[in-house]
């Protein structure tokens, strides 16, 4: 197992950030922790990096105990923190080389590795530039390269694509795929549903420090909501009273949001036909595939950005 957590808790004074969670990440798997801000994702990550001791419970990382073998564990970890903490007083290449030295990697090996990684994250042409003028996406890629200087067995990514534009996100996802293909275990937190769906073999949904659901992304969608979602908009007016009845007739579940109503159905078009036959005519409709966002909504009654 790359990571094994049993009944893990983390308290900050009276505040319970992580409340008895259990999960395991087999070697080679990409595992995501999904949840809104404040769900306990980052606190969980900090315990896995060995920087923050667990309040109680069992945690084992690469078969070792973080309280005792922190140094040995960290030697095998690659950590991509939430903010890009790069050294602005050094060049792009120097950031990698000097960081390698913390791992006891020789100068020659560090320099060779830096060039290889700069190529991997497509920053070779910026190698001698200072860090400051790099774009957000470039800084993120450099942070990821830095996390790989020690050929880690387990890479931890805390919100890897937050704040990046779509193009930068896709490039990053593609690089993470390649790491996965090389057999590296990945543990990532995200509050982006599409990111979890794209990358994760399995995931847990966290809410208020607890695990709300666990499984493969497609399985979670299958068990927690229907295949498709029919989104209905009624313009300035509220959804008509008959809607609830019509939906109940068809045995469908709905979620009423401030601006729209979601109807979960295995066949969205058929559901829309049914509503129209009951004389319900929304001003706007959209049939789409159900996502983890819908799972989260179904599990907690809240949307992720709340």
């Amino acid at each position: 197992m790359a990571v094994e957590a049993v009944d893990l808790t983390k308290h900050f004074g009276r505040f319970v950030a992580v409340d008895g969670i259990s999960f395991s990440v087999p070697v080679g798997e990409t595992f995501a922790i999904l949840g809104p801000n404040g769900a306990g994702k980052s606190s969980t990550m900090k315990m896995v990096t060995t920087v923050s001791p667990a309040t109680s419970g069992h945690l084992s990382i690469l078969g070792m105990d973080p309280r005792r073998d922190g140094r040995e564990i960290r030697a095998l970890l690659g950590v991509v923190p939430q903010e890009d903490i790069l050294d602005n007083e050094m060049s792009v290449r120097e950031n990698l080389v000097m960081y390698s030295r913390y791992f006891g990697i020789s100068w020659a090996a560090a320099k060779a590795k830096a060039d290889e990684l700069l190529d991997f994250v497509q920053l070779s042409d910026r190698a001698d530039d200072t860090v400051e003028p790099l774009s957000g996406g470039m800084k993120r890629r450099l942070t990821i390269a830095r996390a790989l200087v020690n050929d880690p067995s387990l890479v931890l990514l805390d919100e890897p694509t937050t704040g990046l534009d779509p193009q930068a996100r896709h490039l990053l996802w593609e690089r993470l795929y390649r790491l996965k293909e090389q057999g590296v275990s990945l543990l990532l937190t995200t509050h982006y549903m599409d990111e979890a769906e794209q990358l994760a073999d399995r995931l847990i949904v966290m809410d208020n420090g607890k695990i709300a659901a666990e499984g493969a992304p497609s399985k979670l969608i299958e068990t927690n909501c229907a295949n498709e979602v029919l989104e209905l908009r009624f313009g300035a007016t509220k959804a008509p009273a008959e809607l609830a009845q019509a939906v109940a007739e068809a045995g469908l579940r709905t979620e009423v949001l401030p601006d729209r109503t979601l109807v979960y159905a295995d066949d969205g078009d058929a559901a829309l036909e049914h509503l129209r036959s009951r004389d319900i005519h929304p001003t706007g409709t959209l049939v789409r595939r159900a996502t983890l966002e819908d799972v989260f909504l179904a599990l907690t009654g809240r949307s992720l950005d709340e």
Partner: protein
Amino acid sequence: MTATSPKSPATEPLDRSTAKAAKAAGLWPDIDRSGLLHFFEYQIYRFRKGWRGLVVTGILSPVLFLLVMGIGLGDMVDRNSNDLGGVAYLSYIGPGLLATSAMQWGTAQGLWPTVAELKWEGGYRAALVTPLSIDELVVGHIGWIALRFFAAAVMFTAVLTAFGVPDSWWFVLAPFAATLTCTAFAAPTIAFSSTRSDDHLFPLVQRFVVIPLMLFSGSFFPVSNLPTTLAWIARFTPSWHGVELCRDLAQGSLSYADLGHVGYCLAFVVVGWQLSRTGISKALAS
């Protein structure tokens, strides 16, 4: 030491396992020589462009102070006072200036750079997810301040010697005494800064701690000239002990009291170090 594969703790020899347990329990600092060396190596590499600041502290500021205070003011003092036990004013304040600049530098370095590494730039957050241990980071942070000040103190001591300040060969130990004073301020200041998320209290520290200490630690006049209460407060500050120590080295008038000065400053270093460890661990874990 770099582990290359996950291994079972059970296969470790017993003595190593016991040492690890003691370190894990916080009974013994978890420091590897190589970890500390890598920390300093990183800082030195980064410092290549920053050495000019040390020259200002080590050469420019003592030259200016000695010209203004030692020679300008000193000439007047020497004609009117017997308070200094027959020592020329220049020789009196020279070692005091060294000790107070140690105090100022140690405090300033403990303030802003600490918050920068922990919060603003977060360099230590990145460093802590490598094999480096928290103890290496804390000792490295304090040690790096001491190491740079030592370089400035060597220059400072040379300037004082060039102005004819010391009367004794013991003065070659002055850089060590000043670095001890610097560290006695840096370590507790780091502990304080590690609990801060911004610098809005730092100018107050400068105004209400550093400047009064600079004026009242006996560098410019004997603390016995102060009202009794203030004189006793002054004697509890590590800066006074640092000033006395440096002055005794300059005049070759060493006594058991100087062991007391060293011990007093060392106590500030050790307590400050332990508090810094707690503060920095907390800051990095949250």
